[in-house]
């Protein structure tokens, strides 16, 4: 019996994607939505790493992609921290449905 094949990782990635999506769509707190986004991003990263291993083990571009992906996540998170504080200080809430003055 060989180890888990590519498809196993991919299905796991899809599950994580779905879980992240679920979080994005249902959570009321902005921070929670941001966490959901991070899960989706990690699903993507897991997927690409799996592809690296099973499709192009000698092309380390995928690993660079992962690195950049993590950087993107980190930068988002950093900016997100600032934005959450900004929003929270001004409005005393971080629930996304409190922000609906700009509409129509």
């Amino acid at each position, binding site marked *: 019996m060989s180890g888990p094949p590519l498809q196993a990782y991919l299905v796991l990635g899809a599950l994580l994607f779905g*879980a992240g999506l679920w979080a994005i769509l249902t959570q009321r707190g902005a921070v929670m939505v941001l966490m959901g986004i991070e899960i989706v991003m990690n699903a993507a990263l897991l*997927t690409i790493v799996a592809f690296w291993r099973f499709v192009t083990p000698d092309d380390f571009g995928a690993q660079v992609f992962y690195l950049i992906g993590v950087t993107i996540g980190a930068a988002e998170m*950093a900016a997100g921290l600032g934005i959450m504080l900004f929003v929270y200080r001004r409005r005393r809430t971080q629930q996304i449905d409190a922000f609906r003055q700009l509409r129509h």
Partner: protein
Amino acid sequence: MTVDPGLVAWLVFGLLGGISVAAAVGMTITMSMYRAGLALMISFLALAGLFFQLGADLLGLIQVMMNVAGMSLMILFMVMLMMDPGGEMMWDMARQMHMPGIGAYKMGMPPGGLTEGETREPEAQMMVDMAMSTGQVRFALPISVVSTIVLGFIVARPIWPTTLSVPSREAVDVVGELLLSKYMIAFEGAALLIVSGIVAAVMLGRRESDDHESAQPAIPSVLDDPVGPEPPGTQHRAHTS
């Protein structure tokens, strides 16, 4: 008795994968943001384990460093700076009020929760205020489930150009070389990205002298109608109590 390495690999995969997914789902169920942050960290950690299993040791390490440590810390930082609307208090309340349902979705948004222009019973208003989830659960559920299943089906088919070869070089060397040659722009760009993220965070997150003076109400009152444009004759559109 020899342990089939494949079986071990499957077991490890199942364990780590199960943890990561369970943690991810659990994150959305808990009422406390703090616990959600912890769940996220666990999910990331499990993923790091999977990276090691895939032979991407470098990435596993980075995952632990960046995602688990860095990112999750930031989230926890965020959570700590704000009032946690869920947490123990809500948990207790939900238990006392015998609310059915799972975790955070016990306190779902009542149907038509955010609709304007109607008076609500105070209890209903409270339900709206306390709701942990948006009113979109009924859409989100089919969307997430369907897309997960179909996506899983799509990727699970044997369509990928897989190879049996294994990585022949040490990742650290190659990645380092790539980052300084082919992906030098990406390297510099990543720096730029981080800097701009930090600048944005600092600029926005800084406490200003007028912060609390101009603080606005958490939920905009239904009476201050922020909508500017109205077609002629629609002034009596809403709020007719």
